[in-house]
């Protein structure tokens, strides 16, 4: 019965009456549907795991089992997956946070009414108790599919707390088949995942195929400066036939590189988990458009953070180039392994540069919440009278960035037994005693450092690169690949690029401009506005008191102006070239309208000469008057120590007074650095109250991190 039926479904699903199963595909379906076991499938991208789980779902539904729940971290190309599932006769839906509320509600209803055969969700949703009680439990699922299963293992390169919950839950239910899939796993990770998913009374198997791809030509190139790598990319990419992906480590870098490539005539777009200036929902739509554009060959290059991963599969991807180093050999392989699935020759180049170490250090530091934050958070929730606090309350009471508070909450909720639980909008303390798992955190941080050293070694590797990668994955490659830059140096890319392209890149980096968006509101309502500004009493909607769009010249510390600016701050005087650069930015890129007729600046109690001197210089070069219109009347804490809006506003409240304003005249308001923009917002509002014309804020540096 089943094998014949399964083959029918395969042929129907791929639209080819002569199609046959790849190695291990039928065995996987058999293990799940007929033997009702647990299976860990370690297979490279493109092997066809979705065929396996769609067919398994269809067969199980035909036997009256409950629907399949598919757990996957990031949802690429949902629309395509839904269409693909339909070809197998599987009605697939999804519930996730980037979809609209209406769509989510509709999908939930359809699942409960038995109209959906499978539902894709993210691991975070399994942590959502309400979702579990109201949707998953009543649906009585017949099969669980865990995508990117290596995330379960804390031996893996991508360990995620929410995945721990999955293995606990699955540990409670013997008899239910589980299919776990991954395209990257070392032996140690496989062992670990198997142990976590193992349940007495149910067999668990591993089916492992070869992970390495023979068609990829690997190469490592060290180019210390960003401008060098930008020039190299612009030079080489047009010479490669076909489409590809460039990976960057940060969102800023991804969009910067995309903009650069476009300025050189290459069709490129940036891609990240959250697209700058777009809401969650709009980001999701945009991401889908970008993925589709690359699939349709409407783009030459997609420049992305690691977000472009799971689920994206383009058979003829000709190159995967890393603009900056990956964090580990395994994640490098996972990304570069996207290339060359169904073509004979593809290129995987790993560029490395000076900034890699600092970026990596940042990620290692920020991977887990700090003990002081967790301690303060739990203390608040533990108070005798506390019956739960909302996120907004926690933000107001804790001097930490909202994102960090959110990360701490996510981390704590995934702990077991958990110290906190979410009940509606409220976070509550449970009875469980709690200490941070310092040992585990230390171990994981050390492992991350070890992985970093491993990839540093890979970058210096002299022998066959493919063999090194294969070994790191416990995939044996018996003989050298013969294709990589070490095996066949003749075939490798050169390191050089035209000199003027290099110049152009340097200029491009120097011509940056970072927008400073005006804040339209000082709070989410009258109450919050009043609590933040008890002295200034700003209306919660600023209206006319808001400033115009402002600009910063560079990112704090970044190559080029950023480094010069940081040095200037330390020396208490800015290099005059920065003034020229700012003026160039004003005239060529920013072009404030109406052009300011006077200049003022933000007074500093710790750096009195720095900003004043700079503002006077800029004013002189622009031929404008510089007026000391803003005066500090209260001592305050350094604004940079204030970690969230509530603290920032309260620190600024009543701190300044304005004088000698030129009424009705547009003004350039200068500061050395801008982070959240509250200082500009507050001072601009005061200037506007004193009848000044439009206010144009300008900072030398932006310290907003991304």
């Amino acid at each position, binding site marked *: 019965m089943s094998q014949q039926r399964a083959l029918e479904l395969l042929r129907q699903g791929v639209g080819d009456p002569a199609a046959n199963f790849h190695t291990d595909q039928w065995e996987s379906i058999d293990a799940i549907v007929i033997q009702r076991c647990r299976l860990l499938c370690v297979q490279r991208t493109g092997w066809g795991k979705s065929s396996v789980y769609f067919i398994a779902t269809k067969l199980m539904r035909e036997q009256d089992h409950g629907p399949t729940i598919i757990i996957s971290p990031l949802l690429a190309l949902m629309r395509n997956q839904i269409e693909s599932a339909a070809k197998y006769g599987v009605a697939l839906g999804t519930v996730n946070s980037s979809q609209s509320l209406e769509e989510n509600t509709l999908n939930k209803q359809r699942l409960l009414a038995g109209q959906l055969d499978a539902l894709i969700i993210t691991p975070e949703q399994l942590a959502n108790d309400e979702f579990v009680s109201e949707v998953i*439990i009543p649906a009585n699922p017949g099969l669980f599919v865990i995508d990117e299963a290596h995330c379960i293992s804390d031996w893996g390169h991508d360990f995620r707390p929410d995945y721990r919950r999955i293995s606990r839950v699955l*540990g*409670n*239910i013997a008899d239910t088949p589980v299919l776990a899939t991954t395209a990257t796993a070392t032996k140690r990770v496989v062992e670990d995942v198997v*142990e*976590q998913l193992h349940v007495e*009374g149910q067999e668990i198997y591993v089916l492992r195929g070869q992970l390495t791809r023979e068609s990829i030509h690997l190469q490592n190139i060290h180019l210390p400066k960003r401008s060098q790598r930008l020039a190299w990319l612009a030079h080489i990419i047009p010479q490669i036939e076909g489409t590809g992906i460039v990976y960057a480590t940060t969102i800023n870098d991804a969009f910067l590189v995309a903009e650069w490539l476009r300025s050189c005539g290459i069709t490129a777009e940036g891609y990240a988990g959250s697209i700058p200036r777009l809401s969650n929902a709009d980001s999701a739509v945009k991401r889908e458009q970008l993925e589709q554009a690359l699939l349709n060959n409407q783009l030459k290059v997609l420049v992305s953070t690691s977000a472009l991963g799971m689920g994206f599969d383009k058979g003829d991807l000709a190159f995967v180039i890393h603009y900056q180093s990956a964090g580990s050999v395994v994640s490098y392989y996972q990304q570069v392994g996207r290339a060359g699935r169904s073509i004979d020759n593809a290129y995987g180049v790993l560029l490395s540069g000076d900034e890699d170490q600092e970026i990596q250090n940042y990620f290692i530091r920020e991977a887990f919440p700090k003990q002081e934050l967790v301690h303060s958070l739990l203390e608040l929730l533990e108070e005798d009278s506390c019956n739960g606090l909302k996120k907004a309350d926690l933000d107001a009471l804790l001097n930490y960035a909202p994102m960090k508070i959110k990360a701490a909450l996510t981390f704590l909720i995934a702990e077991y*037994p958990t110290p906190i639980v979410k009940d509606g909008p409220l976070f509550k303390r*449970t009875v469980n005693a709690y200490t941070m798992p310092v040992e585990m955190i230390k171990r994981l941080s050390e492992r991350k450092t070890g992985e970093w050293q491993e990839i540093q070694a890979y970058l210096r590797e002299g022998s066959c690169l493919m063999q090194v990668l294969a070994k790191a994955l416990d995939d044996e490659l018996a003989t050298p690949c013969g294709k990589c830059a070490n095996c066949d140096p003749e075939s490798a890319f050169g390191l050089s690029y035209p000199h003027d392209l290099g110049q152009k890149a340097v200029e491009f980096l120097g011509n940056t401009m970072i927008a400073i968006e005006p804040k339209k509101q000082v709070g989410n309502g009258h109450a919050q506005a009043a609590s933040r500004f008890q002295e200034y009493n700003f209306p919660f909607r600023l209206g006319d008191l808001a400033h115009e769009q402002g600009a910063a010249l560079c990112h704090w510390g970044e190559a080029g102006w950023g480094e010069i600016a940081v040095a200037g701050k330390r020396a208490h005087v800015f290099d005059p070239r920065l003034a020229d650069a700012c003026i160039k930015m004003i005239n060529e890129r920013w072009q404030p309208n109406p052009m300011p007729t006077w200049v003022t600046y933000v007074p500093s109690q710790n750096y009195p000469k720095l900003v004043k001197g700079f503002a006077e210089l800029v004013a002189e070069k622009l031929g404008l008057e510089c007026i000391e219109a803003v005066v500090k009347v209260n001592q305050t804490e350094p604004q940079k120590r204030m970690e969230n809006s509530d603290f920032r506003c309260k620190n600024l409240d009543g701190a300044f007074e304005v004088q000698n304003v030129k009424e009705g005249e547009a003004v350039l308001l200068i500061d050395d650095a801008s982070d959240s923009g509250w200082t500009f917002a507050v001072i601009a509002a005061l200037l506007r109250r004193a009848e000044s014309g439009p206010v144009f804020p300008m900072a030398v540096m932006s310290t907003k991190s991304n």
Partner: protein
Amino acid sequence: MSVTLNNQNNLYSDNVQAVLLLSTFFSKPKKDEARPLTAIEYGRFARWLHEFNYTPSSLLHQFDEIVSKWKDPKGKITEDRLADILDRKVAMGLALEKWQRVGIWVITRQDSEYPQLLKKQLRHISPPVFFGVGNKALLQNGGLAVIGSRGIDSIDEQFTQAIAQQAAKENINIVSGAARGVDETAMLASLQAGGTAIGIVADSLLKVATASKWRKYLQNEQLVLISSFYPEAGFSVGNAMARNKYIYTSANFALVVRADEGKGGTWAGAKENNENNWVPLFVKQQSDASGNIVLLNNGANGFELQQSSDPWLEQILSAAKLTNANTKPTNLSLLE
């Protein structure tokens, strides 16, 4: 006994799983869904299983054999219903994980940690499962059940607090329902005075387990809260009435602070206690409550606060008599 190893945490034996599948909801009941067995239905079925040398876990391995022999005299526990409720493993796994995370544990009748007093009294209608949070060991302490309505005046409030404080002083455990009013007053007063308490709740154990008022005492091991209903059960009058018997039977003595004749849970519970002769009943004297008066007239022990530095509470309680002169059979066989 084969064991499901949940490597992060608990061992749930087949037997515990089977008992849960038979008797517990895991989420809000849907309209046409098969319902798990009530305590009474469970009792009936479990007795039959025992007689035929089966255990609940047998249902997981010998289902066909069992249903071929079983026929419910009341016609409610059908083969289809059993098959449906036993098929809820995934739902059970998810629900258990959710509850365990916040510190809720499960005990069944076979466990030594199950309240033994209650089991002796109720026998085959003792609930198959209790969910709970806090110090399990307290469940064997017996003590004084304090019972009364949700609305109390300041006189009754002071009375209740005084009793509870005296109980704490004399190391007498308080048993109550954790509801607003008399229950909460008695429990909190005892806990605040360093005493212990058992709270038997009729609904929403999950919410209660994270409520600030109990948290400190749960963490300090002074308090245990249990429920025979699943942790997310909502309030229902039926459940509240049903759980009253668990309050009486977990204690050695009971004290009614305020009852209205003929209506409400307090009255119904007291009547039930007397009909079944569970524990000696005390009733607050000098009360205008109609129920108090009737109960006292029908033989309940009168109760008044004493001003003495001696352990007067202990003395009063041990001098008590059962309301009905009939004695109960003492020869009980311990059931599953």
